[in-house]
C-alpha cells in the first residue's frame, strides 16, 4: 500500500528522524533524504530556534509529524490547548499524515511522559477510537496510530494486542504506523509470535512503518532506539512489507545518536527488503508488470 488514504496518498520512501545533533550537518550539507519525521512536541513552541530550524528544513525537505503525547488511550478528553498548538504546527509543516501512539500516558491532567500500554478491552477500544476521530476531525489530517513496545500486560485485557489494534483502527477508520521493532520487543516480553501479530493486522490500513534498535536485558527487551536495527527486526520488516506493500519507512535513532551519515546508511538498509518485496509482488501479480 505505497499510497493510501491513511498517508495522504503519498509515496514516501525511506526517512529518518530529524534530531538536534544533525541540524548543522543537514543545514550546511543538504544531504539527499527522502523525508524527515519530526517529533511534533519539539516544535509545538511559540518561537525561537526550534521553529527557525524547522522552517529552514521545510524549505528543502518533506516532513511528517510524529507525536508522543496525544495519548489517544487516556481516559481524559483531548486537551484543547494542546490541539490548537498541534493544528498550528500541522498547518506550518503541511504534513500529509500525522502519527501518534496507541497508548495512554496521562490522567486528570498529570503527564507521565511515557507510552504506557493499553488494557486490551472493547471499552478501551471504543474510547480510544472516539478520541482518534475527534482529533482527526479537528486537525483535518489523516492519522496513523503506532503500536508501542510494552513491558506489562493487564489482567482486564480481553484480547490480544493485535486484535485490539485492529478493533481501534476499524472503529476509528484510521491508519496504522506499524513499528516492527516494537512488535518484536513486545513479542519477547509477552511470549507471542511476532509473525502472528503482523499476519493478523488489517494490512490495507498500514500507512507507515518504523524500524529501530533495542537492548536486551537478562529478563526482558527494552525499546532503546540507541542501536542499529537487529536482524530479527529486519526479517520481520521484510515480512510486513510483503504483506502490507512497500510503504513509507522511518528509522528511529534517539539516543547515543551517531553521525548523520551513519543513521542515514542504517535507514537505507531498508531498501534491500523493499526491493525484495517489490520483486515478490511482481512475481505474484504478472498482470501489473
Amino acid at each position, binding site marked *: 500500500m505505497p499510497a493510501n488514504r491513511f498517508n495522504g496518498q503519498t509515496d514516501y520512501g525511506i526517512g529518518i528522524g530529524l534530531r538536534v545533533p544533525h541540524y548543522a550537518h543537514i543545514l550546511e550539507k543538504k544531504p539527499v533524504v527522502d523525508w524527515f519525521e519530526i517529533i511534533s512536541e519539539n516544535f509545538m513552541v511559540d518561537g525561537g530556534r526550534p521553529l527557525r530550524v524547522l522552517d529552514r528544513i521545510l524549505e528543502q525537505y518533506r516532513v511528517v509529524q510524529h507525536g508522543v503525547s496525544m495519548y489517544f488511550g487516556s481516559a481524559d478528553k483531548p486537551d484543547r490547548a494542546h490541539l490548537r498548538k498541534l493544528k498550528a504546527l500541522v498547518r506550518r509543516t503541511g504534513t500529509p499524515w500525522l502519527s501518534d501512539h496507541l497508548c495512554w500516558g496521562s490522567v486528570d491532567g498529570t503527564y507521565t*511522559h511515557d507510552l504506557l500500554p493499553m488494557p486490551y478491552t472493547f471499552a478501551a477500544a471504543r474510547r480510544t477510537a472516539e478520541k482518534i476521530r475527534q482529533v482527526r476531525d479537528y486537525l483535518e489530517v489523516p492519522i496513523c496510530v503506532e503500536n508501542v513496545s510494552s513491558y506489562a500486560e493487564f489482567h482486564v485485557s480481553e484480547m490480544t494486542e493485535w486484535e485490539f489494534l485492529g478493533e481501534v483502527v476499524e472503529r476509528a477508520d484510521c491508519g496504522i504506523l506499524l513499528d516492527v521493532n516494537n512488535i518484536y520487543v513486545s513479542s519477547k516480553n509477552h511470549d507471542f509470535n511476532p509473525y502472528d501479530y503482523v499476519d493478523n493486522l488489517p494490512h490495507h490500513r498500514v500507512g507507515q512503518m518504523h524500524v529501530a534498535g533495542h537492548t536486551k536485558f537478562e529478563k526482558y527487551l527494552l525499546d532503546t532506539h540507541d542501536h542499529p536495527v537487529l536482524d530479527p527486526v529486519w526479517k520481520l520488516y521484510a515480512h510486513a512489507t510483503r504483506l502490507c506493500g512497500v510503504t513509507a519507512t522511518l528509522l528511529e535513532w534517539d539516543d547515543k545518536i551517531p553521525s548523520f551519515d551513519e543513521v542515514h546508511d542504517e535507514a537505507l538498509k531498508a531498501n534491500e527488503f523493499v526491493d525484495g518485496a517489490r520483486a515478490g509482488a511482481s512475481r505474484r501479480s504478472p498482470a501489473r508488470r
Partner: protein
Amino acid sequence: MKAYSAPTGLRPPPARAPARLRSTADLRSLQRLMTRALVRPLTARDGLQPLWIDGRPMADVAASFIKANSRLTAFERLQIYNRVYWYRLMSCFEDDNPGLRALLGERRFRDLARAYLARYPSRSFTLRNLCSRLPRFIREEPRWTEPRTAPALALARFAWAQTVAFDGEAHPVLTADDIADSPPARLRVGLQPYLSLLELDYAVDDFVIAVKKRDALRAEASNTVESSAKGSRRRHARPAARLRRGRIHLAVHRLDGVLYYKRLDRAELRILEALAAGSTVARAAAAGGRRVPPGRVRDWFASWMKFGWLCKHQKSK
C-alpha cells in the same frame, strides 16, 4: 531521609484495581492507579516502593492489575515503568539546572530533584515545562536547599528564564515608524514575552557560564583519557565555579535564535519593568530616577529596539 510532600494534581487512586474494564470510568480508574504507582519516588536502590500508599505490600497491589510472566513478577514489570519514569524526568531536570547541580552538589541536587518531582508531577504535555514550578517549590520547601536557599532560588529563576527565552513567544518587533507620531506621555509599548527581567542577589550568569565551561572541559578530559588509554593520563585544570554574592540586574533574551544574558543598569531594569507593567514611555522613563540623563535613556531605548525587545503594547485581557 526527609519525607516527600504529597503530589499535587493527582486524584486519589481507587482502593482496588477494577476487576473488569467496561467503561471509560473503569479505564480512568486503572490509569489513576498506575499513574500513582509510577510517580512515587524510587527507593534508595532505584526500586519500586515496597509498600503501597495504604500500607499494603506493593507486590500485592501490582499483582492485582498487572500480569506476571515466566521471568518477571507483576512487581518487577511495574518497576520497569517506575524506573523509566524517574530516569527520564531526572535526566530532564539535570539538563535544565546545571547551575543548581554545581551549587548543591550531586547528592543534595538529586534529593531536591526527587522532592520537587514528587511534589509537582508534570502537568504539561511537554517536558519543556517540567521546571516551571521549581522556584515556587524552593520557596515552599526550603529544607531541600538550606542553607543555600537564596542562591538556589536565584539559579532556579535564572534557569526558567532561559527556557522561556529559548522558545517563548515573540510578537512583531516595534519599529521606529510604529511610534513616530506618538508622544511619550501617551505612548505605551510592550516587552517580548520571551524576555525575562531578573533582579538577583547572586551573579548567576557568571556562575553558570563557568559551570558550563568546567563541564565542557571535564567532557574533553574524559574523551582524552578514553582516546589515549595506553598513553599518559593528562589532567586538565578545572576552573572552580564560585557563585559570587552581589546584586545584579539581568535580561535573559534571545537574538537570531541564540540565547543571551545581558547585565542591565538598575535604572534600566526599572524602566523596563515599568513598560512591562503598562506605564507610558514618559512614566517609565521617570521610573529610572532623576539621576539618569535623558540621553542615556534614549540610548537604552535604541538598544532595546535593536535587540527587538520592544513590541506593541498588549492590553491586558
